[in-house]
């Protein structure tokens, strides 16, 4: 049976079940990052609210890009995924109209992810970010397909 696992805001889910679909709704300036290893058939989806945890040892690491994304990767590797095979796809990071750069959480979320990946020599396979649209995203565990829905339209990256 098709299992929809809903990833809330500041939440993360991983799965090894091909019948699962990991879904997160209504990404605004938040980052939605999917990771999928096609060989190990392991994948995860995280929905980060903010770029950076203000202190170490936060109650919920998935709220932040800088600690949540590494935590997701560690869990995927523990389930048999290989860092070399994981494909990462990012969505969200939208911005409000006329928002000043220092308050543009979407841009900061993306910048934090890119800095994290650059430091660890990880490539982003695809991204659909920015603009002012809301995005609902889904990662299919049988194929690794990453689907984005917004304003009545649907596309894959």
């Amino acid at each position, binding site marked *: 049976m098709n299992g929809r696992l809903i990833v809330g805001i500041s939440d993360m889910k991983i799965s090894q079940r091909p019948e699962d679909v990991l879904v997160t709704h209504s990404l*605004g300036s938040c980052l939605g990052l999917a990771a999928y290893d096609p060989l190990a058939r392991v994948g995860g989806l995280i929905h980060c609210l903010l770029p950076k945890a*203000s202190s170490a040892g936060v109650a919920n690491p998935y709220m932040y890009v800088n600690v949540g994304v590494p935590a997701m990767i560690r869990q995927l590797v523990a389930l048999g995924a290989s860092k070399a095979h994981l494909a990462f796809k990012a969505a969200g990071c939208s911005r409000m109209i006329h928002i*000043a750069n220092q308050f543009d959480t979407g841009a900061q979320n993306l910048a934090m992810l890119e800095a994290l990946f650059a430091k660890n020599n990880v490539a982003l396979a695809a991204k659909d970010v920015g603009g002012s649209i809301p995005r609902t995203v889904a990662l299919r565990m049988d194929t690794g397909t990453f689907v984005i829905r917004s304003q*009545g339209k649907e596309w894959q990256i």
Partner: protein
Amino acid sequence: MSRREEIIAKAKALPQMPSVVQRIMAYLGKQDADVNELAKLIEYDPGLTVNVLRMANSALFGGCGQIATVRDALFRLGMKRVYQMVIATGIAPRAKGAVKGYGLAPGDLLRHSVAVATGAERLAQALALQAPPHTFTAGLLSNIGKTVLGEFLAVDAAPIMERAAQDTISFEQAERRYLGIDHAELGALLLEHWSLPPAIVLCVRWRLDPCSAPVHDLGLDLIHLGHVMATMSGIGGGEDGLFYGVCQESIERLEATPEAMAAAMEMLLGDLAELEPIFLQL
């Protein structure tokens, strides 16, 4: 009759707030309103009493589980604060349904409204400011115009959204071009028609664009940034997404920092988990 006039006329024909809330509002309009009488009026309605106590005991309102009676709530949190809770319980049920035309599932709009209200309160705390007593209720009522347009008047937001994207304008500017009125102005007209306090009406009217408001108001600036935080977080968001402007002047007046906004957004999710079930069952 223009589309604008037609929308306003239909909105004003909507039923008013529950009678207990109207009675309490009328009582508080009296010069000699007294705390004990107010407590009696609230206690007359068991459902209202339970909801006021649940709200008063939430972490956000500061009761922390120690407020046992309406009198306690009135003495410890103040008459104005409790009055705001009463209004909130009267209006919240209108915002919990689906708003199909605006792409909102059941509970979405209420979730967004609670996030605006709590975001404004939490930002005030993060900035060491005292949020005016009307702030929370104004936040909670901020989307009432959207409920009216999308649910009761069955307006379809899709062409409005297309216009916003095409003309690169905000959603409320597109509403004005398409409908002759935006949901903020309609909401404010309705609340004014229901005789809600002018401070609340002002916040609802200008929360999307406080830069254009005729006066500056601390509550309004807080509500605007509550709306910004709730919208960026995608909490209860619809198809209109982030197609809204940010008023830099509000940020400057509050001396808001990115760190304070981030701190408020962190708190917001916990508050929402606590308060949302209270409002959803109203």
